[in-house]
């Protein structure tokens, strides 16, 4: 068994969109976000839980860090309520429009000055789905990384990690610490955080850092500092248009039964 670890978890505050009808906004470069509920990115939630579990087992500290506007504090409070000791938010209006590369640079500018043995991120974000922040951050910090992590076993100076491949296969690799692991969903079962739990940490400090304090310039972030510039958003073209069955649930059920009968499926 190894000593206590200092763990940093990178989290993102994202709109919950899996069961919501999305609308593209008037400028065509974003979606309408006003009515959406925001929460911690699903993959990051698993990363956070994993960090807290490691801390509970081995001791140490968990620091949650995010890049985003003031609203992101909701996600950081959730991290604190779950068991993170410290929370940092890097914020600046100039950051808007940054892609995964821009965000990795911003995170690097702050994390390079912190003490850490382990950095956890989600394998991707549910909004833009770049899957790149973790590995780029690891390259900038000069530490090993691995992605799609489904299991972490720690021993002194080294971690044994299962990562998910295609078709239900995993590979086991050994990684020297300090390292960055980008976590896949399903690695654990994130515990529920009650509103009371969040209330309890309302007074905890969230350290806010702006761009000038990071040492980065305007050109390092936003569209200027990114690899990708979004031109427009549009609704995906239809591959096979479904025929919509309409009516009350009973009427729809009767129609489905007819279809199944014709096909000899019942």
């Amino acid at each position, binding site marked *: 068994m190894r000593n206590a670890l200092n763990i940093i978890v990178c989290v993102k505050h994202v*709109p919950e*969109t*899996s*069961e*919501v*009808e999305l609308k*593209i906004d008037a400028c065509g470069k974003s979606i309408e976000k006003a009515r959406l509920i925001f929460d911690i990115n699903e993959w990051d939630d698993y990363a956070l839980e994993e960090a807290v579990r490691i801390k509970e087992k081995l001791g140490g500290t968990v620091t949650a860090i995010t890049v985003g506007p003031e609203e992101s504090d909701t996600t950081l409070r959730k991290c604190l309520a779950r068991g993170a000791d410290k929370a940092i938010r890097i914020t600046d209006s100039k950051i808007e429009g940054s892609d*995964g*590369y821009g965000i*990795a640079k911003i995170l690097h500018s702050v994390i390079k000055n912190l003490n850490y043995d382990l950095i956890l991120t989600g*394998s991707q974000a*549910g*909004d*833009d*789905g770049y*899957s*790149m922040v973790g590995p*780029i951050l690891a*390259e900038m910090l000069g530490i*090993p*990384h*691995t*992605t*799609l992590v489904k299991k972490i076993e720690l021993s002194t100076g080294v971690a044994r990690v*299962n990562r998910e*491949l*295609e*078709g*239900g*296969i*995993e*590979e*086991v*690799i050994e*990684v*020297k610490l300090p390292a960055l692991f980008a976590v896949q*969903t*399903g690695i654990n079962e994130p515990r529920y955080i009650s509103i009371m739990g969040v209330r309890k940490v309302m007074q905890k400090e969230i350290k806010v850092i702006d761009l000038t304090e990071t040492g980065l310039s305007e050109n390092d972030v936003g569209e200027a500092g*990114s*690899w*990708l*510039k*979004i*031109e427009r*958003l549009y*609704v*995906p073209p239809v591959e*096979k248009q*479904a025929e*919509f069955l309409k009516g009350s*649930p*009973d009427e*729809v059920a009767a129609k*489905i*039964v007819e*279809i*199944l009968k014709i*096909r000899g*499926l*019942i």
Partner: protein
Amino acid sequence: MAEIFVLAEHRQGQIREITYEMLTKGREIAEKINAELTALILGKDVKEKAKVLSEYAKKVVVFEDNKLENFNSDTYQKVLSSIIMEQKPLLTMIGHTSYGVELAPRLAALLKIPLATDCIDLAFEGENLTVTRQMYGGKVNVKAVLKKAYSYMITARQAAFASKKPQPPLNGEIIEKPSPLTEEITSKRFLGYVLPPPGGVDITAAEKLIGIGRGIKDQANMSMMKELANTIGGVLACSRPVVDKGWLPSDRQVGSSGKTVKPKLYIAVGISGAFQHVLGMKNSDLIISINKDPNAPIFNFSDYGIIDDLFKVVPALTNKIKEEKKQKGI
């Protein structure tokens, strides 16, 4: 002449399908902009595979080294950064797979060349490289332009591009290059594979599947889904969130990280239709989807769609099937 690199992906002696998909797309782009298509393969004893690749590309560059026996993004990064710096290809294509997501972002950051991940389309428009990607689990498409550079990198989504062998085969030149790996890389080591546990239900053999997703919301609703599956004589399958929550074992998962199924009937219940899931079920004979979001991507792959609350439709459907069976005296 500009060059396009395609990184061949292989595991346990098999070239992965994504390789041929990228070579096909790479060839199309190369023809349009008058560039040369080069396949790269790294590994141990991969010369035979290089021959197969040579049917698809004008050139195949081979790096053979015992240290490249199993995929490791650190060793791959050493080899690929050296050849990209040396040959400065206009574009490098890597699969958006478990290997590609481990490798490409870090490699691009090291080389300081722009990368667009998980692309479902790409084209050079004038001097710009334009890509199509998806956001919000496939609910929105995005057209984006990469920052101008001498060299670009993309990762290609699986099954986004059809693979087609050129006729006649190109019989490209096979070029063996010395491995630039001088010492064993120890920061990250491959130890072995873990196969899924045997036994359980084989969803690939089922004729009727009820695929359930995040929309079922709570484990308590599983019984409603089981009843539908039993009544229809089918088996429960699912998308990733259901396995993550522990409501069904991982051998029931349909999609790129689970199983590919082709049943006679697939009823998607509360599944929005992220591509990872669609990849595993879109070739089913008959697809019926129930979702309350009219724009759920799953409807773009379905024969029939029902835009309604699944908690109303599923019990109604179960009852109707029961009535039908009663009438038939089954």
